[in-house]
């Protein structure tokens, strides 16, 4: 798998606001079919990296290529086609509050596909059930959904056009450990069944451990460690060391040795 061409290639990326540099010559590859977890302290630019890759924040210098197309030199049309091949789950879900859950999921389909009304409805229900919601939730408005349900609907909307890459911005933040664990499993299952590539920004060490194939640690504006969990634990970088060995990072092992996770 390592020989395959990366789906996302970030090279020498510099992003800053006013005179503060957030990302400083950052380079990162996302390989096809993997779940990459990006970790970093609060306000260190994890979300900025995600938003820069999907084009919400302009970079000062450096290049971003997705599916071998470099954004800054690609014609508008080509890039639009690339954008259709990914889905984004925002941190707060970013569901359109005036639309029901079903209408939220159908929104990208109606925008891009010309399908019959009944097929659109059926597809929306399929997506809804894929993310573990019942069809009864379909007619609820975002204000009536719980935090976990909001994220699930957001994920279903991100998956509406069957994207090849899914960007997740802190998918488990604000969820209780059980819901967070379920969400990790869901992402893992969907990634396996649908064969998508997942780029996940997270704080959650459990997510990193259970869901991610590879982890990239972001500190001082660039990637200081990259690889599976074992690489992280072996890293000598002070921030990575303290992050992965902090008390909150350790799995709380129950006495009887069952693999239960506790809050």
């Amino acid at each position, binding site marked *: 798998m390592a020989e395959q061409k990366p789906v996302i290639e970030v090279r020498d990326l510099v992003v800053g606001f006013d005179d503060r540099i957030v990302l400083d010559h950052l380079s990162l590859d996302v390989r096809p079919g993997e779940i990459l977890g990006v970790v970093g302290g609060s306000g260190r630019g994890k979300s900025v990296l995600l938003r820069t890759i999907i084009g919400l924040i302009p970079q000062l210098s450096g290049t971003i290529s997705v599916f071998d197309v470099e954004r800054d030199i690609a014609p508008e049309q080509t890039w639009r086609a690339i954008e259709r091949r990914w889905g984004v789950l925002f941190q707060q879900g970013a569901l359109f*509050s*005036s639309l*029901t859950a*079903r209408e939220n999921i159908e929104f990208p389909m109606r925008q*891009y*596909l*010309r*399908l*019959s009304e009944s*097929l659109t*409805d*059926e*597809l929306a*229900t*399929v*997506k809804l*059930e*894929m993310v573990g919601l*019942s*069809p*009864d939730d*379909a*007619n609820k*408005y*975002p*204000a009536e959904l719980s935090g976990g349900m909001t994220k699930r609907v957001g994920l279903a909307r991100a*998956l509406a*056009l*069957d994207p090849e890459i899914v960007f997740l911005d802190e998918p488990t933040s604000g969820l209780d450990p059980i819901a967070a664990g379920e969400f990790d499993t869901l992402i893992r*299952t969907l990634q*396996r*069944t*649908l*064969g998508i590539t997942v780029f996940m920004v997270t704080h959650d060490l459990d997510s990193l451990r259970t869901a991610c194939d590879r982890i990239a640690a972001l500190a001082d504006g660039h990637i200081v460690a990259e690889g599976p969990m074992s690489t992280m634990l072996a890293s000598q970088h002070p921030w990575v060391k303290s992050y992965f060995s902090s008390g909150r990072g350790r799995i709380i092992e129950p006495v009887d040795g069952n693999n239960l996770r506790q809050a």
Partner: protein
Amino acid sequence: MSAEPLFEIASEGDRLRLVASGAWTTDHADRLEQLVDARAIGGSGTQSAEVDIAGIEKIDTFGTWLLERTVRRLEAAGTTARLTEIPDRYRGMFDKVHAANRQPLPEAQKERGVVARIEQIGEGAVGVGWDLLGLVDTLGAIVLASARALRRPRNFRVTSIVHHLDRVGWQAIGIILLITFLIGCIIAQQGIFNFRKFGAEDYVVNLVGILVVREIGVLIVAIMVAGRSGSSYTAELGSMKMREEIDALRTMGVDPVEVLVLPRIIAMIIALPVLTFLGSIAALFGGEIVSALYGGMSPAIYLSRLKDVITVGDFEVGMIKAPVMALIIGVVACTEGLRVKGSAESLGLQTTASVVKSIFLVIVLDGVFAIFFAAIGM
């Protein structure tokens, strides 16, 4: 890029064989739907059907669902149908889609018809009652809060009041002067134009003077303030409600009415009479300019006639209304703001309601005042 999707019929007697090939992905969405619909109709009436999908190069949940749907449609038509040769890498996705969509879709709640319409009217009427109760409730809370603040004057949020005075009063002066000036001009122009037919052009001063000082000055300013500042009160309080800031205040034992509502309303009660006064002067000035340029009346005559026409009583009638209108606008705006629920839509809804209701109440109140002043002979 990816191959065109195909869906061929390879019929063998009463056994139907459908062969799917190519790319069954979202990229080919509209063509695929037509293909599948055509084949499903063509396949009905046979004993059994097999959908062979070994030739599919690429498939996503969209294509998977279309195949699943074909099978279900054939089954519904009395044919025993199944998918064959599912490639292993897609097995998981097929299983997931196979399990999905088994329950009938719940109907979206859409009530139409005469009964629903009548029900809406009834709900609207009840809603008006609740609205009025809500206003009285807020008014009561404000009175309580001000009584508490009077007992402990240190709790008066002077900084906050000054801040809101700046926004509601000082920053509004420019636009209020401009609008009232133009209104004064228009009234004078219309007055001169129509009175000229009777040779009674001089009476334009009576028209402008009494109308502006008693009614139009305060009314225009109140409507302007309701649209400009009332809406911003509602939106501010509403977004604070949405971000749980108001709940946070409550948990700290701080009364949101005392901290947020009272300073805003006091600022409005101070600002509106001042703005009314300035606005009336601007309108009278507008009348003077037009009378000079269009009616040929010298400013000195205009002013001396104005002195004869307007009494202190007229001025009082106009000014007494201003603080009451300010109170109404403030109470409506704050009540609507605190009613905002979680969604962005509700914020918009309440802001609209705030402006509409306060302008409506301001005009109704103006009418009530007119009756009252007529009755006491002012």
